[in-house]
């Protein structure tokens, strides 16, 4: 195998896939990337068995072929080279020679037979989503996923493709996010699938700001076709909990508050909460919110008043401050609306003007029992 390529193109293509390489694996070959030369095209593949990403660039091929190379090492070499043409060749013993104006670098690769094959996503199930919206939806949801493998379904984002809307839902069992894009047509497809957060992270990173995103679905995989790269991901085939059932439809109390003030107040007060539970208590009374925290073990205490719009009976509720801050940080509007029935049930938090936006979004947080 032999080719020559511009350093910048090679670097860009390699950088796209490099993060897919697992940082720790029992399968050594996964530390490698697979380089293939065909029809004057250089393609690079990295995989962690769950996610596979391919990127490509133009090159001048002297001899077609393929080889696997330690990914991080290759990236380190290419990164340090100035933008010149690089010549890359591998012999039948998988010895690699990289030449540039500056000198020569030799390293060993491995045969591609060990390298996992790219999943075949051959399907006519295709949908399109507007790039900017998809990016926002990913950002608004992945933070609320669970990181614990004990409940695999919750480690991914539930994507629901329906006739006239597209939803993304995430939850870790303590809070939940549901984002609906009504500006969407399912092309007759209606399907629920759970996509690993790691894959969505890569997708968001590679998404351009405008244009439309093509998504192809097969039985067990999803494929995102992005500019100069493709991301394949395994679908998490686990039952997702019936989330709609736990989002109450009606509320007896409603509050509107300035988001920035709310966040910074919670942040300050939570410094005095018990560091393990991060519990803050919220007392709502006529147009006022009192936020307080207390750490019995160390004797710290804090409380603040924040003005708000609230015209219902008084109520005391407690939350984990970190969850509250997380949620508030993921809402963009100036004011947020919080609705609740009682201190035992969930609270819903939305941007104040939820209805006429492109994306309709609901965030839910479960309270902590007040002692």
């Amino acid at each position, binding site marked *: 195998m032999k080719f020559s390529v511009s350093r910048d193109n090679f670097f860009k293509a390699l950088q796209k896939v490099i993060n897919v390489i697992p940082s720790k694996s*029992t399968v050594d070959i996964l530390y490698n990337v697979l380089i293939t030369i065909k029809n004057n095209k250089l393609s690079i593949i990295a995989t962690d068995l769950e996610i596979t990403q391919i990127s490509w660039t133009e090159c001048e091929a002297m001899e077609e072929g393929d080889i696997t190379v330690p990914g991080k090492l290759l990236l380190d070499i290419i990164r340090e080279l100035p933008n010149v043409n690089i010549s890359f060749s591998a012999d039948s013993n998988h010895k690699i020679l990289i030449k540039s104006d500056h000198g020569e670098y030799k390293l060993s690769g491995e045969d591609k037979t060990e390298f996992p094959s790219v999943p075949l996503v051959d399907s006519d199930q295709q949908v399109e989503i507007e790039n900017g919206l998809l990016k926002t939806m990913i950002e608004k949801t992945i933070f609320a996923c*669970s*990181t*614990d*493998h*004990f*409940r695999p379904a*919750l480690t991914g984002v539930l994507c629901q493709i329906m006739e006239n809307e597209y939803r993304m839902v995430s*939850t*870790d*069992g*303590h*809070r*939940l996010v549901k984002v609906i894009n009504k500006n969407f047509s399912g092309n007759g497809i209606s399907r629920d699938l759970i996509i690993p957060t790691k894959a969505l992270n890569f997708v968001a990173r590679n998404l351009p700001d405008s244009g439309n995103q093509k998504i192809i679905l097969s039985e067990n995989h999803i494929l995102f076709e992005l500019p100069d790269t493709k991301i394949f991901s395994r679908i998490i085939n686990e039952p997702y*909990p019936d989330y709609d059932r*736990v989002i109450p439809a009606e509320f007896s109390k409603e509050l509107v508050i300035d988001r920035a003030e709310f966040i910074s107040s919670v942040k300050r007060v939570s*410094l*005095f909460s018990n*560091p*393990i*539970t*991060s*519990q803050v208590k919220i007392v709502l009374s006529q147009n006022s919110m009192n936020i307080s925290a207390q750490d*019995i*073990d*160390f*004797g*710290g205490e*804090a409380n603040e008043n924040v003005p708000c719009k609230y015209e219902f009976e008084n109520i005391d509720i*407690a939350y*984990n401050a970190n969850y509250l801050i997380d949620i508030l940080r993921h809402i963009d509007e100036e004011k947020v609306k919080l609705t609740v029935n009682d201190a*035992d049930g*969930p609270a819903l938090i939305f941007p104040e003007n939820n209805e006429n936006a492109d994306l309709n979004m609901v965030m*839910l947080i*479960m*309270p*902590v*029992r*007040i*002692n």
Partner: protein
Amino acid sequence: MQKSNKVHILPEILANKIAAGEVVERPASVVKELIENAIDAGANAIQIYIAGGGKKLIQVVDNGCGIGENDLPIAFERHATSKIRSEKDLEAIHSLGFRGEALPSIASVAQVEIKTKEQSEKLGLVFTIDGGKKGALRKTAANRGTSISIRNLFFNTPARRKFLKSDNAENQQILIVLKRFFLAYPDIDFQLTLDDKQLFSLKKTDLKERLVEVFGAEQGENLIELDERVAGIEINGYLGKPQIARRSRSQQHLYLNGRPIMDRNISYAVYQGYGDTLDEGAHPVYCLFIEIDPAFVDVNIHPTKMQVRFSNDRTLFYLFLNGVKKTLNSHGVLADLSSVNQGSAIQKAVIENHEQSENEVKKEFELKKTKPSHFNLTKVKKGSGQISLAYFNHHESEQENVQASGQQSLLEEEKSDVRFWQVHKKYIFSEIKSGLVIIDQHLAHARILFEKTTKLLNDQRTSGGQKLLFPQKITLALDDFLVFKDIYQVLNQIGFTINVFSGNTIIIEEMPADVKIGRESQILLDMIDYYKNTSQTSFNLNEKIAAAYAFKNAIKTGDILNEVQMHNLVDQLFACEYPFYSPSGKPVIVSMELDELARRFK
């Protein structure tokens, strides 16, 4: 003055009472002896009735061979047995009983009524014996087989009766014993009625079905069959896949020719067979049977007959090790096929086994030397330990800083002059004036959680639990459920809200805020296991639950900690009242003096 004899032969009743101390420890041991007798009698249907934790009543009804008129009174004499006749028989025991000790021992400390009929007889017999005093033998109408009832166990030995635990606790022990029989004899019908509630009604079936009935349906799917033999020895049964491993050994069953036994050598071989498919602290589920010529085993080495001695224990070790590996491999559980031979890997295992037990003894010895006799009584004063005061001073002054400024970030910056290193994802190393300290991360965290939790419980406070969006429904095994009932109010106080849904099914609605998401039911089961198995008798209920919570929820060996987390952990540890010892009394901190280090380099 008249000389009195000091040595004399004990009256029989007294001798029996003493023997009862060995055979009859608690209701569960009575149950065990009676079931053994029923099985030895050839019964294929056995009913068990328990009332008041077995303290009030234990009744076992079988359809076995019954006892004849001449034998019945003799059966209650010491060393009366129909099962062996000569010393030679003792070398190859085919029955479960052989000592002729059980009935007289039981009868000496309880009120016993036995009703029995041999198949060939028209009428049956009733016989009572009360605290060892025999009553009259009468004829009566009876079914084929034997029904024996034991009332008011230890009624005449108040000291022993006082040692019995709550009904619930005794029931749990009885269930452990019964489950062993349920599994060992799938071809016998068993019925268990506990305080008028029928808990088990098991019909004759095969082992797999029986396992599912006893362990629960979820486990059933994850059981794989093992069948191995070499000349004269056969082992078979089922292994649980690593994913259903438990936090205790409660679902490990080993039988020798139908007799439940415990054997460290074999258990070690099984664990080795699982290798690193098991997480730290996980115990595999198994139910395994050894069929071996009785001549190769000595079952008469322990009064409860649970321990046996094999003449070929090395063969057994290899047989189990290889059997487990092979079985797991053939179901794709182990990735590594290379070690299924008798080569060096096994050699190594044997050597390691040896070293490990040596180390254990050493550790135990050291522990005894250094640990306070009871951590609650002997208060370890701050600074009175091995470690120089520098640590405490340093941290105490920081504590004041926090309270004064209330800025956590400030605290983190200031701390950076003490450095920590994590070693093997298990220990935290740090430098002190006089040398080096090593802290066990798991034990340290367990200590912190233990003190927080006991303090909370003793102050009668209730901690707020995080409500779950999707309450977790779990069906507990019956013995777990009994434990749960014992402890659920205390659980509630530390932040759980758990309701009974129906039968043994419970719903977890809230969890303490520091429990990792997704681990809700696991933590609860782990705690139940811990609670069930801890032998820390010096703990009261609160402490026992606090310890269960602390050990099960603490960071584990293998968890990676960053510098800030290590700082916080060490800070919190030294804010504890007894930072030097884990709740179970193990050292949390080990220090090494510079002199000592220097000496090592000579």
